[in-house]
Structure formats: C-alpha cells, structure tokens
C-alpha cells in the first residue's frame, strides 16, 4: 500500500478509504533512532537554527524514507513554516498535497478542502463514511482509555499521551492498533486506582522531550488531561466527517481551544496546567492569552531539540509542584 506522510492530524479517514497508509511524520521523526541527527541534517541543508525542531525533523525524516513520496501538508491551522517545508520537499521531488483548516471553522470551506483531498485520492463520500465508521470503533476504545485516566485513575499520563497521539495515523494499521489498545484497557482495569496525586493538565503540542510524564509521576503528580493529544483522538460525537473536523479544536483559534480546556479542567478537577510551547513557535505568543484567560496555576515550558528534560526544566517542574502543594 502506498504511504502518505502527514505533517499533522488531517481527515485521515480519506487516506484509509483510498487504501493508502497514513504516516504521521512527527511520530516517525520523534520515535526514530536519532531524532537529533535528523534536526542537524536539516540545519546542514540550510534550515535556520532558530526554527522549530519539528519542522526540521520532518524534513529530514521524509528525505530518509524514500517510500514516502506523497506528503499532505497542512498549510492553515498549523505551523506556517509548513509552507517552506512543503516547498523544500517539493524541491527534493516529493509530491505535496496541501490541506487547509479554515480559520473561522466554516463548514463549506472545510468540506471543500476534504473533497479536494478525496479527489486526489479518488474516493467517494460512501467510502470515506465507511472508513469513518471503521476508525470510529478504534477511537471509542481510546476515549475509554482517556476516561480510565481521569475518572478511574487507572492509566498513566504517558499511556494517555501515547495512545491518543497515535490516533493521528493509528500507527498505519487501525485494527492492530485497536487490539493493542484493548490489551492496555484490560491491563489498566486490573490495576489499583492511583490516589493522592496532584492532577495536571498538559496543553499545547506534544512534548519533544520523552521523560516528562515519568518525571512528574515520580514526584507524585500525574497528567490526567492531554489537550491536543485528546483532540487527535477526536473526542466529540458528531454526525459526520465535516462536523468532526469542525469540533476538533487544535487548528482553530486559541479561544476555541480554551473553551475545551476550561471545560475539561473543571470536569477533571485539575490542580494545575502545564502549557508546552516549542521554541520559535507562534504558539509561544498565545501563551499570554492562555495566562490571562485560564484561571488555574500555569507553568509554561519551552522545548527545543529532541532530548530528555534538562536541569532547568526539571527545576521549573519541581518548583511548580511545590507551589501546587
């Protein structure tokens, strides 16, 4: 089956309907053998040092995986650097399919974008709706894992992160991924519920450092709300695909995202929130809106290169947990 790289979550139902395999390039980059080397490779090619490491990592990842000859690049609703990423990949001979989430969440414009993608892949609405049902069954299981995390206190923040973030491409095989989720659900249900922990929310893009969740849990705090990862899993029941991707908050305004964050913070009884923003990302500017609009203790974390938590970030986390206690 041909592979389609994706730069962030898109209506992946279309790709599966066409019999293609979607590959979330972020996941492929960060789980690679040496993500730092991929960033350096892009810098050697001419990507600036003061630019988001995800973009650089994705660039080198595509060039190192010659089986990915088509990339769906999100030109609106994600990082604007994707424009140049798309063009430099084009220069390297990769086929680019642009996709734009309309800023105002306009249903007609979004439908048009989805239909343009359907036309590229040569699929009908019937096929896409069947694919949506197929993926919906997997999404249900991941939603249950999320519920077990915050309501039953049976799953870790890392598990919650990993399984939800994987819903951007279902690891390329929804049925296999579904079976793995089912196994985890069974195991989690047999655990004793966790007690007496600080309950944290994690908002913003997924972290580029790998040990954040464990570090927090070793210190008696657990992430029970992974905002964007949960959005990747599509947490809302909707009547159709267009509405599903209208309810999906990540590509739209920060104020729309904040409605979801506030609702979940309240429902999940969060003690505090960590806002992660990637170095050089426009979302660092939005941090000032988050600080003003979110009435919860907030720690802003910045990450640059793929790595483990550095001493300074650990100090911030320690101080934040001390403060919450």
């Amino acid at each position, binding site marked *: 089956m041909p592979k389609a790289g994706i730069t962030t979550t898109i209506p992946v139902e279309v790709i599966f309907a066409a019999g293609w395999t979607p590959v979330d390039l972020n996941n492929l980059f960060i789980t690679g053998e040496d993500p730092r080397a991929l960033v350096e490779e892009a810098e050697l090619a001419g990507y600036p040092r003061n630019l988001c490491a995800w973009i650089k990592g994705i660039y080198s990842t595509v060039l190192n995986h010659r089986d990915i000859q088509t990339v769906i690049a999100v030109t609106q609703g994600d990082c604007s650097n994707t424009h140049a990423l798309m063009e430099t990949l084009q220069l390297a001979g990769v086929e680019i399919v642009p996709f734009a989430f309309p800023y105002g969440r306009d249903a007609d414009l979004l439908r048009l974008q989805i239909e343009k993608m359907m036309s590229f892949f040569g699929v009908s609405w019937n096929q896409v709706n069947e694919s949506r049902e197929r993926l919906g069954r997997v999404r249900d299981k991941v939603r249950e894992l999320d519920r077990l995390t915050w309501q039953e206190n049976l799953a870790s923040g890392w598990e919650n992160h990993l399984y939800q973030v994987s819903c951007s491409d279902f690891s390329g095989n929804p049925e296999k991924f579904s079976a793995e989720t089912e196994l985890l659900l069974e195991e989690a249900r047999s655990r004793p519920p966790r007690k007496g922990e600080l309950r944290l929310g994690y908002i913003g893009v997924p972290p580029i450092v790998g040990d954040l969740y464990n570090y927090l849990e070793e210190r008696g705090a657990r992430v029970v709300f992974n905002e964007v990862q949960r959005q990747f899993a599509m947490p809302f029941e909707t009547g159709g695909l267009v509405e599903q991707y209208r309810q999906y908050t990540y590509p739209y305004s920060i104020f729309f995202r904040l409605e979801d964050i506030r609702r979940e913070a309240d429902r999940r009884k969060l003690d505090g929130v960590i806002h992660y923003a990637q170095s050089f990302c426009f979302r660092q500017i939005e941090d000032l809106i988050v600080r003003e609009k979110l009435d919860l203790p907030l720690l802003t974390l*910045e990450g640059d290169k793929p790595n483990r938590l550095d*001493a300074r970030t650990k*100090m911030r986390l320690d*101080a934040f947990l*001390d*403060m919450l206690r």
Partner: protein
Amino acid sequence: MISVGVDVGNKFTKAVVLKDGQVISKSIVLSGFDQKQSANEAYDQAIKEAGISKNDVNYVLATGAGKKEVDFANDVVSEVGAGARGAVYFFPSGRTIIDVGAEDGRASKCDQNGKIVDFAVNEKCAAGAGSFSESMARALEVPLEEIGPLALQSNNVIYMNAQCTVFAESEVVSLIHAKTSKADISKAVHDAIAARIISMARRVGVEKDLVMIGGVGNNVGFLKALGDGLEIEVLVPDKPEYVCAIGAALIAAERN
C-alpha cells in the same frame, strides 16, 4: 533543633546552620566541577564554624542547581521555594522576590509564609544573570566588584541590542571602539540585565515589597537599574547570596 540548608549554585555552594531558627554559621565555596565535593566542603566548614558535630544536625535540606548531588541531605527543595522562604525571613512584608545568581534569574510572587504563588525563570540564555555582568567586566577590563559602582557614575541611556551574552560582548567591544565611556557601557550592561529581570517580574506581577536575593544583590549598579525600571524600592538582605540556603534551612526545621 539544628537544621542545615545547602544551596549548590552554578558558581558557589553555600551552607547555613540554623539553631532554633537563628543562623549560627555559614560557609561558601566554589562549586567547581565536582558539586558533590563542594557540597561536602561547604557543609564541613559550616559545621566546624558552628562548633557542633554532624550528629547534632536534625535535618539537612538541599537546594540549587546541584541539589541532587548532596547525598547527605534528607531531602531537596526547589530553589524558587527556598529563596522565597529565606526572603520572607528577612523581610516579612516581601511579596515579590527577585533572585539573580550566576546563571539564573528568577522572579516569584509569594504569600506571607513565603509560599510561592507564581514564578518565572530565565530561558535558555544567561543574559539576565550574573555571568553576563562578569563577562562584560572582562570585556571592559574592570574588576567584577567595580563594574556595579562604575554604572552609578553614568546617567546616559545606551540600548544594547544583543539578546545573548556572547553577542553582547562584541557589542560592548564596539562601544569601547566608539570611545564610549566605561561608566556608560557599564550602565548599559546593567540596564540590559535588569530589563530581562523586569519583564519576568512583570509577568508574575510586581507586588510590594520587593526583595532582591542571590549574589547579584551585591551589585549596586544592577540594584539601581532594577529599582529605576520597576519604580519601586528594592529591599536587599545582608549577604543576599546566602538567602536560598537560609530558606532551605528554615524549611528543614519545619519538616523535622
């Protein structure tokens, strides 16, 4: 009741012995490459000066960048929490705490018990910290202890554009070549460091009283720039570099 606070900073390691809430001895050593060794040295010195033995100590709490290296400590506490607790010990009315050490600059807001309510820490660059003025002193060929008083001799405003210590050094060299006086450059350097700290302080919200702690609290040029920029009186305890260690010792006494 004897408690000890050990603050393993990026440049210096400090130890403070407290007996029934009063400081009875303190010591300071260079942190060097081996933080474990410097923590032991500082501890030994402070114990010796206090005229007690280690067996008399009820609780040791470590803080600072190298806190995890203090293997004889009972526990660790974040430097933000220790700093605020120490600052409120000296100035009970302190609600905004500015802590500037060799590599770190921090602003925090606390309650009357010295418990942190909010805080901000400098990012990946040391432009808002003591090593910046050290590096600039070198560029100006002025002893470190003189760069602060030198800044007080100037009333001119020169903006430094560089955001990074390394680039700022070349900017200072350009100013020297342009025959700018050392006093003016020194003031520009301190204004630049203070600007970084002020933006952090404003982020957490400045509330009276404001207490300055950390080694840079000894630098009068920085204190003037900070006070002028925030338009607020800056309270500084005697020997501000020990405040985090004192805060850790106070928390240690409560934990025991």
